[in-house]
């Protein structure tokens, strides 16, 4: 009985460490995206990615506070995600140098939906009750983020069909 209790507690710690890693990875990736677009003078989208990075950092911090971890816990190895990277991490090839806030928010929306699906799957699985309860809570949080991003999307201009046409393209043939 004692062993079972300890296992459930360890699984809960592992689950929260993964949730923390997920938020941290997203924080770092959005910050990298902001840097990339800064380099290419797309300040508006860079600013948006920086904001998304800050939001994810707040989520990560909240998990640290909730768990009472004094510092970063011993995380599951970085390359242990089943899908390669964390479910809330946008792939590097998502960007285009002419992208607009609308595209950045679409990326964020996809990540939030993936995160929600990740937690929902755990909530519906066979993990210990405490883990499932935490997963239910986190899935609800991600659902709220999805709603916020959908609202945000309504407030930014929709790109025109030729948004990626560059009057001075890199593909020159001189």
């Amino acid at each position, binding site marked *: 009985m004692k062993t079972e209790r300890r296992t459930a507690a360890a699984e809960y710690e592992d689950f929260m460490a993964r949730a923390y890693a997920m938020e941290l990875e997203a924080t*770092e990736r959005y910050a990298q995206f902001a840097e990339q677009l800064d*380099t*290419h003078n*797309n300040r508006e989208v860079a600013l948006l990615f920086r904001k998304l990075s800050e939001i994810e950092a707040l989520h990560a911090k909240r998990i640290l506070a909730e768990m009472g971890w004094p510092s970063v816990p011993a995380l599951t190895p*970085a*390359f242990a995600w089943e899908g390669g990277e964390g479910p809330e991490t946008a*792939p*590097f*090839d998502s960007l285009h140098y002419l992208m607009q806030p609308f595209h950045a928010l679409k990326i964020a929306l996809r990540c939030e939906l993936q995160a929600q699906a990740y937690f929902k799957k755990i909530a519906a699985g066979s993990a210990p009750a405490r883990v499932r309860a935490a997963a239910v809570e986190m899935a609800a949080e991600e659902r709220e983020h999805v709603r916020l991003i959908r609202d945000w999307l309504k407030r930014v201009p929709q790109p025109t069909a030729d948004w990626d046409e560059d009057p001075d393209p890199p593909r020159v*043939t001189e």
Partner: protein
Amino acid sequence: MNAPLAAAPLAAKNFKSDYKPVWCPGCGDYSVLSAITKALASLELRPENVAVVSGIGCSSRIPAYTACYGFHGVHGRSLPVATGLKAARPDLTVLVASGDGDGYSIGGNHFLHACRRNVDLTYIVMDNHVYGMTKGQPSPTTEPDWSSKLAPGGTGLREFHPLVIALASGANFVARAFSGDPNGCAALIAEAVRHPGFSFVEVLSPCVTFRPEQRGWKEIVHPAPVAPTDDPARAARRIMTDDGFNIGVLYKGSRRPYAAAAGATHALADLEKGFQL
């Protein structure tokens, strides 16, 4: 690979420099940079014990973006520089970064002989089948029918097959990775560094500017369906008949790496005598 020091392990970010990469947004090389830093962190190495050597091209910018020692060298000549460095400083972990133009065309001959010499290096080639930095010319791995403004109707030339050439030339470790999976790529690079001798990791790394269709690679890459073999003939057959999108370790050999003779073989004064006029 060299034995890690007994200091606290570092995080991937500790292997990144303060220089911001200038690659195009969406470029696969961002992911390779991330994979290299993650691999070095997972190996519990220290930046001061690692050197990253490169030639010329988009991919060859990597040394500046790491906090390790770096050498951004001459076009196609990263391998001779790295070979010399490793021979002189066998205590260092030496990574070599290149692209399909730098590594297989300008540096093609050095590639063959680096495989043959089997010095303990990890050679990471970011292959996007195009010369990106010089605005989209076909490279040795470009498909013969890839038509562009700079090669109307395509080159009609058969592609270079780097993995099988590495194998035939004596590389001790051959793997293919995909930049779209930075963590998988990191694990493969870490394994390549751990493996003694010349380790070759070809990374499929899309050029989103000149080959935007390569964004579709993520839909077609797949894990190699069989475990790595130590039989070069079997590995060659597999590599020659695969679709070019098998990801994983494809060959792990056991050839003894080159080791420079310990200490000086001749006294400096004796060598100088031969140059006296």
